[in-house]
């Protein structure tokens, strides 16, 4: 969809379909200036990195969950920081956690059946999964090389354009 790609890249929108109009309205809401100056780009990134730091502290040792979970993987951490920095500005900061295998995980949840999550391996492989209603789901893997793959941005768009 032209409107989505252009907005995410900061260019003018030219979509005319109903979907494009819906997405345009949604993105305009997200572009509204934040009441707090700290939530500009720097503030966003700081908040995201603080969330990563909190997750690191939680998973700083093996068996941090009492069930044999691995401590966070340093290379996954490296990719995680780049990942949050590369997220489109219109996307809210996700919840950050560490999986039992030590990979960092980012989750956006709007309702019990409206959720999207991405985990990042030490090799930069993204494993993602999303629920978009009762019988609508998506999951797969993508390589992460500095920019967010289309499969991830497509699913984030799907999550935030769905009716909660």
């Amino acid at each position, binding site marked *: 969809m032209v409107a989505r790609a252009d907005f995410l890249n900061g260019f003018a929108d030219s979509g005319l379909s109903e979907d494009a109009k819906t997405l345009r309205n949604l993105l305009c809401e997200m572009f509204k200036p934040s009441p707090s100056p700290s939530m500009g780009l720097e503030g966003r990134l700081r908040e995201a990195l603080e969330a990563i730091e909190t997750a690191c502290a939680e998973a700083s040792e093996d068996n941090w969950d009492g069930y044999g979970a691995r401590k966070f993987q340093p290379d996954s951490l490296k990719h995680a920081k780049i990942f949050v920095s590369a997220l489109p500005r219109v996307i809210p900061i996700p919840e950050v956690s560490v999986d039992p295998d030590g990979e960092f995980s980012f989750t956006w949840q709007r309702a019990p059946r409206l959720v999207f999550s991405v985990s990042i391996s030490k090799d930069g492989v993204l494993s993602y*999964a999303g629920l978009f209603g009762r019988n609508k789901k998506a*999951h797969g893997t993508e390589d992460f090389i500095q920019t967010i793959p289309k499969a991830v941005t497509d699913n984030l768009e799907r999550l935030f354009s769905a009716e909660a």
Partner: protein
Amino acid sequence: MPALNKNISIFQTSVFHINGLDEASIWVIGETHVAGPLGKTLYGRGDILAAVVEEKKLGIDYDNTPPRHANIIGWPTEKHEQKSLAQELAAEAKLKLRDLV
């Protein structure tokens, strides 16, 4: 998300079978076997019907070590498939918050 049990090389999720227990007894299990050993505060739990787990083609291994303990087994090995199943289970689970007052 499931964790890999390295001893037997399968992915599993630790749970407790709470059928027939009152609320107080359930929270005691959580304190005694989950939060307590980690020195953490127990704020809540997620309850899910065994039938929902089985509906998702997962199994339940009742090892009763400690009493009432079980593991959800039969997880796929691919991480993205595990995440997807975990989301489906979470969507069917009920969050119960503990009254800490």
